[in-house]
């Protein structure tokens, strides 16, 4: 039986030569673009970057060491937290909606708000960088992991039960094993995110690191330094991605099992909605308790740490509440108009590329490194370039959002395509089915749970992207409103925006979940148990 994991390589040794030629072409194209844009102070070519890196290698090495150390610490802490949360959700299934709901809300908290507070809590040092790196990764590991822990054949679960063993045995012998591919998918997505989180964390006043140097370089018109930093960050992220992928190929030797779960009878009308309403209330309660309790337990100063009651007053009872609401509504409208097309485009292109790569592995060898690179180049560096190439209008922002959504979708879908059960593939092989038939009848249905997991994960990623672009480049929408509120110490407004962003992200997440339930009821009923 052929191991399906090896069936869809990211970069297969045999394709090495093609990959190399592809990358060489990319480098040449980059150099040509850089030279044609030479008088725009926006892009440096590979030759200039290499020269800069040689000259400043000591500085770069020290900055990389600092950032990488924090990213690694955040990566470990964030992923351990994800595993722990997944375990809680599994052992105690009723908590799952609340765990994922609260996890989502925390993941959606905008950096403009959390950064300064983390700095006050931790004081000088690496605390905020590590926490922001951990926050950037835990959610994208938790969601695929929860999918994976349920991707167990019911026959295996029955077997464990027939031996009279309980949930713990199921977890150890079955679920952990089947969830490993999903865990590795999460870890691969997490690698560039951790680096980006650590770099953005440095914006809160860190002494050294790639993020500190990026800010310096961009303001100082040092184009070579800017792109040298982006190149280093990208290379490291790509290496981490490939390293985790290599590890996965070493560890995951079994082909994915067939998942034969009985289709679930649809619930009586109304019950699902009622249950969802109940869990939403549970999430809301948990968030409020954490919010209130967190401020109290950490003894945060009320000048910048606003509680739920302050937000309520700002939005509803204050004399100028109506004006605040219309300000928020206007900014939110500006943001949503760009967010939604970018989000949908990112999902479509990500899933489409995954399918394309599965048909043409050669393309995968060339495009995959580029895709990782696109996601890993810090958005603060790419935003001005994209804005120059595509203008300050809608296209630039939509493209940047799509890039942020595209990568996790692609990775998750590639892993999902690999989950096509080996036995089923063997059946198709013996009938001489074409690769297209196998794709449509086996691989794409096997990919669906991963696609929906990606769609859910991408909600906060899209929000992050759009707010950062607004903050740094276009000066519109909710991202700019947050930065402005922070700069004039209007923390009531800032926390109101944060609450609104988190609520809307959660609603978006729930909307994706509703579509998901309908589709998976047919294609992957084991996910709905």
């Amino acid at each position, binding site marked *: 039986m052929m191991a399906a994991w090896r069936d869809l390589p990211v970069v297969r040794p045999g394709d090495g030569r093609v990959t190399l030629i592809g990358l060489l072409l990319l480098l040449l194209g980059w150099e040509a673009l850089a030279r044609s844009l030479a*008088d725009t102070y926006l892009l440096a070519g590979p030759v200039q970057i290499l020269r800069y890196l040689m000259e400043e290698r000591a500085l770069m090495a020290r900055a990389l060491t600092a950032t990488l150390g924090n990213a690694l610490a955040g990566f470990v802490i964030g992923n351990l937290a994800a595993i722990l949360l997944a375990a809680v959700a599994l052992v105690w299934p009723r908590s799952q909606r609340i765990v994922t709901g609260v996890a989502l809300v925390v993941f959606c908290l905008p950096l403009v708000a959390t950064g*300064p507070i983390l700095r006050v809590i931790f004081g000088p040092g690496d605390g905020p960088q590590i926490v922001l790196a951990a926050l950037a990764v835990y959610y994208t590991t938790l969601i695929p992991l929860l999918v994976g822990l349920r991707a167990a054949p019911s026959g295996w679960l029955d077997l464990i039960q027939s031996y009279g063993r309980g949930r713990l045995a199921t977890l150890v012998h079955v679920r952990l094993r089947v969830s490993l591919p999903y865990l590795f998918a999460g870890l691969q997505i997490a690698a560039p995110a951790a680096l980006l989180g650590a770099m953005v964390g440095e914006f809160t006043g*860190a002494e*050294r690191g790639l993020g500190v140097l990026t800010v310096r370089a961009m303001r100082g018109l040092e184009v070579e330094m800017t792109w040298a930093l982006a190149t280093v960050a990208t290379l490291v992220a790509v290496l981490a991605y490939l390293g985790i992928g290599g590890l996965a190929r070493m560890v995951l030797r079994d082909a994915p099992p067939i998942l034969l779960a009985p289709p679930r009878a649809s619930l009586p009308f109304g019950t699902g909605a009622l249950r969802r309403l109940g869990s939403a209330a549970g999430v809301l309660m948990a968030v409020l308790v954490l919010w209130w309790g967190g401020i109290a337990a950490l003894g945060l100063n009320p000048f910048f740490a606003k509680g739920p009651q302050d937000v309520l007053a700002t939005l509803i009872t204050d004399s100028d509440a109506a004006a605040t609401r219309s300000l928020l509504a206007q900014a939110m409208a500006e943001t949503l108009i760009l967010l939604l097309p970018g989000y949908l485009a990112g999902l479509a292109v990500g899933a489409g590329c995954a399918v394309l790569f599965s048909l043409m592995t050669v393309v995968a060898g060339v495009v995959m490194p580029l895709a990782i690179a696109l996601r890993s180049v810090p958005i603060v560096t790419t935003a001005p370039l994209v804005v120059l190439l595509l203008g300050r209008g809608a296209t630039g922002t939509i493209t940047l959002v799509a890039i942020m959504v595209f990568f996790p979708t692609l990775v998750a879908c590639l892993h999902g395509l690999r989950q096509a059960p080996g036995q089923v593939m063997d059946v198709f092989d013996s009938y001489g089915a074409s690769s297209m038939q196998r794709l449509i009848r086996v691989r794409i249905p096997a990919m669906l749970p991963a696609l929906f997991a990606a769609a859910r994960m991408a909600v906060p990623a899209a929000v992050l992207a759009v707010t950062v672009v607004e903050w740094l480049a276009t000066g519109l929408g909710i991202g700019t409103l947050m930065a402005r509120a922070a700069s004039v*110490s209007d923390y009531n407004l800032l926390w109101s925006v944060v609450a609104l962003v988190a609520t809307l992200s959660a609603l978006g997440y729930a909307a994706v979940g509703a579509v998901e339930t309908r589709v998976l009821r047919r294609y992957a009923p084991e996910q709905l148990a």
Partner: protein
Amino acid sequence: MNDLRRMTRRGMLAAGTVGFGAAALGLSAGRAAAQAQAALQLSWLHSTQFAGSYIAQDRGLWSQGGLEVSLLQGGPNAPVEPPVVAGTALVGISAADYTAAAVEQGAPFRILGVAMQKNPFVIASLPGNPVNEPAQLAGKRIGMALANTPVLQALCTLNGVDSARIEVIPTQYSPQPLLTGEVDCLLCWETDLPVAMTIAGVDSVTMLMADHGYALHSQTYIATDDSLANRRAELVALIRGEAQGWQIYREDIAAAAALTLAMFPDAGLDLPTQLLQAERQVPLMFSDLTDANGFGWWTDETVAANIETLALLGRKVTPDLWDRSILEEVHGG
């Protein structure tokens, strides 16, 4: 059961905080019994913008006064006000408009000293299409953060320019849109983007807004009422070190720039940029007023001018936002 668990968690968090506190205390007691400790929150990344502070630290000007000062770097996502309110920093470097906004939101701040007597905001343009006076702004495209719209409005009001005739284009804080012709001018600081352009070999024209009625104290030292009441000796020691440090800075700017590079090798600084920045901020920091009365000084007249500009920015403040008692002690004794 649920409540119990939550209480335990809260208890552990509290215990953790106490543990950290104890460790910090133990550390300070171990180092030097006579030295008090304080932090100074800078408003941006390390550069010669704060070279006076570096000199104070390097030459032991603070430790002579019995104070050990740690310098906290700022950044794009590091507002100065929260650490000062929270007590993480004894003093922060702010500006009159940001301080006024924070006070409006309930922060108990006072301005103790004014490092930049003249506001560093300029309109930067290229010699081929220059902005030498406010009237020339009409019909131009200006690149700036939208958050600074009130600043441009105030300049227009002060000089009778119709702000509707200026096209504002929201840009990142970078000279790049000016160099590619996306905009005709930029709202920026005298000491950053024009310096970057000069170093990159591009000549630029700057119009200092302070020369056209925009009176707003910048790089101001702020502290809380509580610190003013209870930590006076430390505040005096800190501001005295600053005053002495900036005096030494003025006497040898090249040495100050070299010291900045030596103290922060990881900041990615280069000497020509730092030197030019250091030179350009001298006329903003020192004036006849400071020559007569000492570093950081202000008078009732300069405060009144500031209050007028702040009113144009939509901030209502009273003269008691400024507290000169610390400066008087520094320069009196």
